[in-house]
């Protein structure tokens, strides 16, 4: 099973059924599988805070949401994470492409990468870093954790994890 297949399979096994995405090159394969999955309602969003609004609504309607986005989105979504997802205590697994780490060809991506973990720590968001392919084995437990405690959780997936793109 490929990493992308494993991610989608874990989402489905955890009854995640609503996924919104803002694309990143590293995430192209998994977004493609999500679009094709009959078990996942996929709603692409134009901006990540909009996507978090969709997820909040879907959760209150009885679905189990997740968002897929790039780490630059942390800069976009702090207000939404704090005043919507956290304030109303809602679960939200965030599968995040961790751009700007080792192997990154685009220098500007490093500017956000150096702030990513500090911002997530400041927001008290449980954060997991997938660096090696086998780290994906933890995804199942992380998804369960988010829905158990009604909190957003961040899964940072770097270029080494994706073995380049």
């Amino acid at each position, binding site marked *: 099973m490929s990493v992308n297949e494993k991610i989608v399979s874990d989402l489905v096994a955890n009854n995640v059924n*609503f996924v919104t995405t803002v694309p990143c090159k590293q995430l192209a394969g998994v977004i493609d599988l999500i679009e094709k999955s009959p078990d996942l*309602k996929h*709603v*692409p*969003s*134009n*901006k990540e*805070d*909009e*996507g*978090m*609004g*969709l*997820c*909040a*609504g*879907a*959760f*209150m*309607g*009885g*679905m189990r*949401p997740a968002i897929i986005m790039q780490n630059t989105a942390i800069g976009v979504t702090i*207000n*939404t994470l*704090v*005043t*919507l997802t956290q*304030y*109303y*205590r*809602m679960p939200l697994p965030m599968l995040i492409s961790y751009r700007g780490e080792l192997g990154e060809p685009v220098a500007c991506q490093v500017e956000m990468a150096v702030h990513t973990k500090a911002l997530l720590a400041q927001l008290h968001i449980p954060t997991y870093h997938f660096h090696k392919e086998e780290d994906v084995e933890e995804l199942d437990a992380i998804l369960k954790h988010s829905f158990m405690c009604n909190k957003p959780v961040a899964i940072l997936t770097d270029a080494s994890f994706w073995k380049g793109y």
Partner: protein
Amino acid sequence: MVRSDVLKEIASILRDQLVVCNIGLPSQELHLIDDQPTNFYMLGTMGLASSIGLGLAMAQPKKVISIDGDGSVLTNFGTLPTIANNTTDNFILLIIDNGSYGSTGDQPTYAGQKTSLTAVAKACGCDNVIECDAADTGKVLQEALDGDKMTIIVCKCESGNVKVPVITMDPVTIRDRFMGAVKS
């Protein structure tokens, strides 16, 4: 008519529907006029009433009305293409367009100047976009509810606010009460 007059006028229509209400004075006014478990009050996060409402409408079959403002829609313009391209016939977006940022002191918005939200919604691909005068909002909203088609209503009203208390209900209580109403 100002926004609170519009809300008073449509309160009896809203009462039986799931309502996601915009941050600030709109939620405070609705809370004062007719607090219902079927109301989800946004206490923060300007701009996302339409996104939350659309997600909610996609997730379950009951009708959902998002009450938004022109300033908030301008803040989250990306919502209109998402709505247009994900037709959800149990969703109504009611934009109360008073041409001003009411909660922050009635500073003018661009929607009250050259920008037409009705034209923007249509250009984004929304099929049923109805602009109406404030006095006709109840009639147009009831027709949209009866029509079973996703509808965007742009209600043109005057700017102006009434004094209302802030909502002191805990956010988790608002959410839990609302989710109970969604399920019932």
